[in-house]
Structure formats: C-alpha cells, structure tokens
C-alpha cells in the first residue's frame, strides 16, 4: 500500500514501528483486504464473460440481425424464431407504465416529506415507506395477481385479459415508488434553505417555492432517481413473471398479456432446459441485452448525481 498516513510516517521517523514479523503480518492483512476489494471486479468480469461467451455461441446459431430486429419470438417452439423485439417492447411498456405510477406519486411524496411534513409527521411516515421498500418482489407479484388484477384492473376494464401488462405495471410502480420518494427527498433536502427564503421573501406561496424553486434546484438528483427507478423496473422479474403473462408478442395494449425479457428467463428455467441447447444460450443473449440496458441507465443516473453534487458543494 503505497500511501501511508502522516501518523504512520511520523511513527516510522521516531523509530516506533514494530518488529519485522509484525510488518509481514501487516502486509499479509493488507493483501487479503485488497483481494476482498478486488473480488467485485472479478464479479463484473464474470458477468460480462459468461453473458458474452454464451451469447456469442447463441449468435452462431441464430443471426444477431434477426435477434435484434426480428419481431417474432417463438423460442420454445420447434424451429422457433428468435426476434427479441417483442420481449423488449413488453419490457419497455412495463417500464413506462410503472413510471406513470411511481414518478408522480414518488415525487409528490418526496415534496411532501421534504417541504411540508413536520419532523414528527415525517418520523411517522418515513418508516412505512421503508417497510414498503423491504417487501420481497414475489409478494408484489402475488398482490398483482390476487388483488390489483381482479379488484382494480378488471373492475375498471372488464375486457382485460387474465394476465395483463397493466396490473403487473401497477405493482412494479408501487414497488419502486419508495425508491423514487426517498432518493428524490434526499436531493430536495440538500437544496440550501437560502433559496427557499429568498423565494418566500418575494411573496411566493409554499407550493410555488416547492415546485418553482426547490424541485428545479434539485432537478438532476430527482431525474437520477427516476432513471434508477426505470432501471429497477426493467430488471424486475417475479412480478412480471406472475402477472404479465407468458405470451411473447408485439403488443402495446396494456390490457393484454405480454412477456418481458426477465419473464422469458423465468419461463425457460422453470421448465427443463438442457444446458448447451439454443434455448439455453438464448437466456444469456437476452440477459446480456438486459444487463447492457440497465447498465446504461445506471451510468446516466450516476452522471446526473455527479452534476448535482458539483452544484451545491
């Protein structure tokens, strides 16, 4: 470890460092800790290598052009076609619809908690949102299937299919809502109060201060939370596997079922898939696409957060 603290350097200068044996054990410990830290790099390399290697083998059997631009996904049929677009559109449809729930409600809850709620009210409300964030996704899947679908979606739209994208999306939206609320609240609270006071001084109402001063000032952090939420919704698996159906089709009607990328993975591994078969390899091609999509969103979100930090520190 090249850099040593000032205290260590002083100790060395004064001849206060220990014996050679102690020094060796210090170094060994340093190396062990270094290995622990580096394991995360190995994980990333592992993910990338496994996905790319298997996806590459998949593309030897199915053309990458047909994969990326094909509109028919019949992987589990005999001589099935591997056009991934139906899975991608279903995934994005769930992403967009769930954001219609999570973004407005999450942002408004963040505004309430940061600008309106007294410390006591906040101390009561916040733990409930954290509890909501701690519920396993399989429970949300159950909730989508046994409550949101029959009691909400099919009450309002009686002709919705048994498995439909809308009920899955509502559940995904509720699942990511606490994340939007808590991340947005963090950035709203980081806005210096001088900005609020200046706006109040000009006679602005609380609503005007919140929406025209605080939210714009925290915008990059707020947008970062939105992007992270979409990324989470896109990677969400159990809710869509249970509630959105398993028919891969180009479909933009939320009242019909559609299979997302993650739901396809679950469908394949729930059956008996033979390692080395084309279908097995297609899992990794779909996984690679999913990984790249979420990675891109996470990087964009980090970029927004970095910009936000520069503004007020």
């Amino acid at each position, binding site marked *: 470890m090249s850099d040593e603290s000032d205290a260590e350097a002083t100790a060395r200068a004064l001849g*206060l460092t220990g014996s050679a044996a102690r020094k060796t054990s210090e170094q060994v410990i*340093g190396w062990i800790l270094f290995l*622990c830290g580096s394991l995360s790099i190995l*994980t*990333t390399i592992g993910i990338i290598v496994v996905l790319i290697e298997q996806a590459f083998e998949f593309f030897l059997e199915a053309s990458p052009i047909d994969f990326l631009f094909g509109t028919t996904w019949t992987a589990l049929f005999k001589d099935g076609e591997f056009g991934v677009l139906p899975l991608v559109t279903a995934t994005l449809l769930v992403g967009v619809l769930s954001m219609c729930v999570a973004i407005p409600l999450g942002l408004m809850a963040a505004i309430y908690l940061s600008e309106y709620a007294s410390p006591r009210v906040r101390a009561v409300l916040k733990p*409930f949102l954290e509890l909501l964030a701690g519920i*396993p996704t399989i429970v949300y899947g159950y909730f989508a299937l*046994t409550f949101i679908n029959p009691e909400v979606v099919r009450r309002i739209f009686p002709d919705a299919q048994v498995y439909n994208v809308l009920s899955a999306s509502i559940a995904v939206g509720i699942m990511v*809502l606490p994340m939007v609320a808590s991340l947005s609240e963090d950035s709203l609270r980081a806005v210096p109060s001088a900005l609020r006071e200046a706006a109040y001084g000009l006679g602005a109402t609380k609503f005007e201060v919140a929406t025209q001063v605080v939210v714009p000032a925290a915008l990059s952090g707020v947008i970062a939370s939105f992007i992270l939420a979409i990324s989470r919704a896109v990677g969400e698996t*159990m809710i869509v596997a249970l509630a959105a159906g398993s028919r891969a089709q180009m479909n933009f009607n939320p009242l019909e079922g559609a299979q997302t990328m993650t739901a396809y993975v679950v469908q394949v591994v729930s059956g008996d898939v033979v390692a080395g078969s084309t279908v097995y390899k297609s899992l990794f091609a779909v996984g690679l696409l999913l990984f790249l999509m979420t990675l891109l969103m996470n990087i964009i979100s980090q970029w927004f957060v970095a910009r936000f930090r520069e503004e007020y520190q």
Partner: protein
Amino acid sequence: MISVPGVNDEPVVFGESSQVDRRNRTATVFRYIFFASTIFGILALGTLLWTVIDKGWDWLSWGLITNAPSRKPELAGLNSALFGTIWVISLTILMAFPVGVGAAIYLEEYAPKNRWTKLLQVNISNLAGVPSVVYGLLGLGIFVEIMQIGRVVLAGALTMALLSLPVIIIAGQESLRAVPLSLRQAAYAVGATRWQVVRHHVLPAAFPGILTGTILAISRAIGETAPLLVVGAASYIATRPTGFMDSYTALPIQIYNWTARPQAEFKELAAAGIIVLLVLLLTMNSVAIIVRQRFTNKARW
C-alpha cells in the same frame, strides 16, 4: 385598492386580490394532493398486508411449517423450503459477511486514492444496480455449468453472496466513514499499526452500522426468488437439505410455485407462505433496529 401605472396603464391590484386568492387556493389544494401521494404508499402497503392476511390466515398451522410440499393443499407445507432457505442464507452470510467487511475496510482504510480505487468504487455501485436475475445467469454459467457444482445449496449460496456483496460493502463503507478521524489519529499517535488501528478502534466503533447493513442486505436476499430459480432451486423437493451439496428449494420459490398454480386453495396457501416469509423478515429487521439502538447509545462523539 392601490393603482400602479403599468405598461398599458392597467391597474395592478395588491392586497385581497383574486390573483393572490387563486395562488393561495392552489397552494392549499396541492398541500392535500402531496399529502395524499404520501399516504398512497402506506395505503398500498396496508392493502397488500390485508390481502395476504385475509387469504392466508386460515391456512396458518403447524402443519404448514412441518409438512413437506404435497399435491393436496391441505397436506402441503413448506418445511423443506424453510430449511432450504436457512441453509442457503447461512452459507451466504458465512461467505458474504467477511468478504464484504474486508472490501469495505480496504476501500475506506487501506486503498490509495488512485484510478484503481475509483474503478473499484464505480464498479461496486454499478454491481448494486445489476438486476438480480442477471446474477442468476452468472451463477448458472459459472457455478452450475463451468465449475460443475450442480443445482445444489452451494451454487445458490455463492450466487446470493455475490448478489449481497455490493450492498454489504456500501453499508460497511458508510459506517466506517462515520467513525471520526481523531480516533484513528489517537491510535496512530501511540504507535499502533494500520491493522491495529482498524481492528481495535475503527472496526468496533463501526460494527453496529456494519451489522445493521448486513442484516438488511441478508433480509433482501431471503426474499430474492429470481436468481435462485435460475441457478436451479428445484420446484418440488420433499426432503430438507442435509449438506451444502444437496438439491434444495427455498421459501420464495415455494410461494412462487403455489401462486402460479390455478387452484384457489394453493393461492391461499401461498398467502400463508408469504405470512411466514414476512414474519421472518420482520424479525430480522427488528433485530437490526435493536442492534442499532443498543450500540449507538454506547458510543457517541
């Protein structure tokens, strides 16, 4: 009424004007809308819990915990799934906790401020954002197929450990960062080595935070379904695993299978399974809160 000459000589009205009234009304209306949005999440939580308890309450019994899964809903239980979860999660903790804490110590106390460290840090926050199903594919590709471990407890636990690591590392780093620098300086001043400073002073001070973060990471892992499905937790296993090379099933997987069945009885059984899962998670979270309060009262700076 005070009239001010404007551009078009129109009177601009101050005081009890309709414009101020309207702005105040908007402010009041939105106060309630914002409050309602916050309450929506809590209502959703309440509805979710009510749905689960309403459907699953009558199916709660000792048989649910002691019986193996069965085709007959009245005989079906989640004994093997419960023990599968305990096996996988215990092994996950054994692997992820030391490595995660080690990585956090490395990044906060040892790592030089250079490009490699920055890369490590960015990499860890990106790993925290990778969908859990992708970790499943990693486990399937490496542990099950390349290393030929098979669809057993060990492969599931290795996958779950990799999945929990970023969360444990990030929580660990936050707790280590909260330990004041003066503590380290005092220890260095009396001649302690770097490891002695960490082992005897920094780590004990940061430990409650690290433990809380780990418990939260692990309780998230307990509820994870997708990665275990992918690495091959079996859907029908009647016996408990007795070693880490046994095949297994897990609590969320059993819930998934029951939920996915068409019969209403199995859906209710799934609700009972969810109650068991939530009670388990609630217990772990309470432990985390107690740990946090117990230890933070002792050390204060």
